């Protein structure tokens, strides 16, 4: 169901209907009792796969609120990485990466850092992890904290997609290290003055991108 408000501001709300009973069906011990006691599914039942997906999204949102929302840095980096996908390059592998993977990766890095890290370091780390080939075939994969069984959240990407994302991240990492943050963020170099100090440049670039973009 999609609700759209008619008057300005135009807001679109997607409403997905689901039920926790949908997820219990594949559960082994529940299955026996279910087959005995449960009435057969009504004929007009909603698509099972989509309902499970909606439940997963719900779990992920809860996880996000608990783990990511309290940390400003984490949220900033998630947003910036999502913004990569919006850049109008002809070749943009970031579109392939869904936001759930990004959130997970960022949270892993943020929570495993020894000290609290700045947004720049956090972004650099995310790019480093991707550069080191976590997505690639021999990598460890990324465990989904919202599933009981160890599940690889990267499993739905094919090899070529993984390759492309890795290559993109590797390129971005070097851009970042060699002081081309503005190219990364797709913003103008704020001022010729900014070159004077690396720290300044990175901060300003961060801020300007945040201002320019409302999600």
């Amino acid at each position: 169901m999609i609700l759209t408000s008619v008057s300005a501001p135009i807001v679109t709300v997607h409403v997905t209907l689901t039920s926790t009973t949908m997820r219990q069906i594949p559960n082994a011990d529940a299955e026996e009792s279910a087959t005995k006691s449960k009435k057969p599914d009504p004929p007009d039942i909603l698509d099972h796969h989509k309902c499970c997906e909606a439940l997963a999204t719900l779990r992920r949102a809860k996880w996000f609120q608990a783990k990511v929302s309290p940390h400003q840095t984490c949220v900033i980096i998630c947003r910036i990485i999502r913004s990569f996908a919006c850049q109008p390059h002809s070749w943009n592998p970031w579109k392939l990466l869904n936001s759930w993977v990004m959130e997970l990766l960022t949270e892993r890095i943020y929570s495993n850092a020894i000290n609290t890290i700045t947004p720049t370091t956090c972004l650099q780390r995310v790019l480093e992890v991707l550069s080191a080939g976590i997505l690639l075939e021999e990598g460890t994969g990324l465990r989904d904290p919202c599933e009981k069984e160890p599940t690889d959240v990267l499993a739905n990407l094919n090899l070529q997609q993984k390759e492309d994302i890795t290559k993109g991240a590797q390129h971005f990492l070097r851009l970042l290290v060699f002081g081309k943050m503005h190219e990364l963020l797709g913003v103008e170099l704020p001022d010729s003055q900014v070159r004077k100090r690396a720290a300044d440049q990175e901060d300003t670039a961060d801020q300007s991108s945040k201002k320019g973009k409302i999600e």
Partner: protein
Amino acid sequence: MRGRPRSGGMGRGAPRLFVPHIPFDFVMCEQAFPRVKPAPKDDEFTQALVKRNQELTASTQDQATILDFITKCTTALDALVVLPNTEFEVEIEEYRQVGSFKKGTMMVGNAIADVAVIFKSLPTKDSVKLLSEKLVAKMKEDCTNELTVEMTDAGFEIKAENATVNVLIATIPSNMRKLNSAMHLDQKTLQATLAAIRHVRWFEESAFHSSVKMMVRLLKDMSRRFEGFQPLTPWIIDLLAHHVVMHNPNRQPLPINEAFRRCLKILSSGFFLPGSAGIVDPCESGNVRVHTVMTLEQQDQVCCTAQTLLRVLAHGGFKQILGIEGTAAVATEVNVFNGVVVAPSEKVYEKPVEEEKKEEKPTEKQEEKEDKKNGDAKEEKTEEEME
């Protein structure tokens, strides 16, 4: 001019403190990324690594030839050391074998042994010449082979039919101040020879494990074949090989296949990029990061090549990387492995325009210090390349 390290933790306060960034390394934080996929099947890859290593190792026969030759040379040196001043005016403090032959990492087709000779007297160019003449004369006493001598910047080379001894000259530290560039050997080359002695000592103490030596050979081979790895000096390779094999939480040497992968991974993550902690030279005082020997362009190039090779490796292209199949073009051209298109990474570093160069004055003391050291280290590179 070095680029400014741009790692996190830099304060905005007046004297900027340089905090090196430690790039990500899977091996150091395995708990953070628990494995959910089965480990890759590496049998074939490991076998290929071992086999390639054997091919790269100098044959026992070659090694015996060189050993024989260097022994003759050292015997002759022994005789010269004890000669009284009246007969031979060059005073020798001591001599030591250095370089890849001593380290046990000699490559096939590179039959050169290095000896560092430390003078007690001042190392004038004439005295070096005198030493070479005396040494050859001594060696000819028990050697029938034709010997030729070739002077080099750092000393001289004695060549026989199938072996070469490269003699490097150094002097005792108290002489370093008295040097005159017109009369004596260049101070930088003398320092580099002393560094070579320290390197061998470090290598024998820390990097004696056979996996480290394997890794050194494989890396040297890669730096020969891939243009992008050419900036890696032999000393950087030694340290990097030691790092990837030995530096892990368990303090146990990693198997060669894991070490090889790790090497490409950390290079891809920017281990040798500006601002990275990299490896601190264990043989120099004052926290010199070894990769700062390379220019920014070279650092970008090394990282770029490693990134491409890592992706090639991940898609099963290990034969091309090890040079068993294909050419070095794998690092610079678009290739297809198992249906996956692998395009090479592109360089990002551009040389700053002249005007900007003037603005960017190094503000940190450490940077200046590094600059100075770089000069020395660069010399050392040429030095060790002779190995």
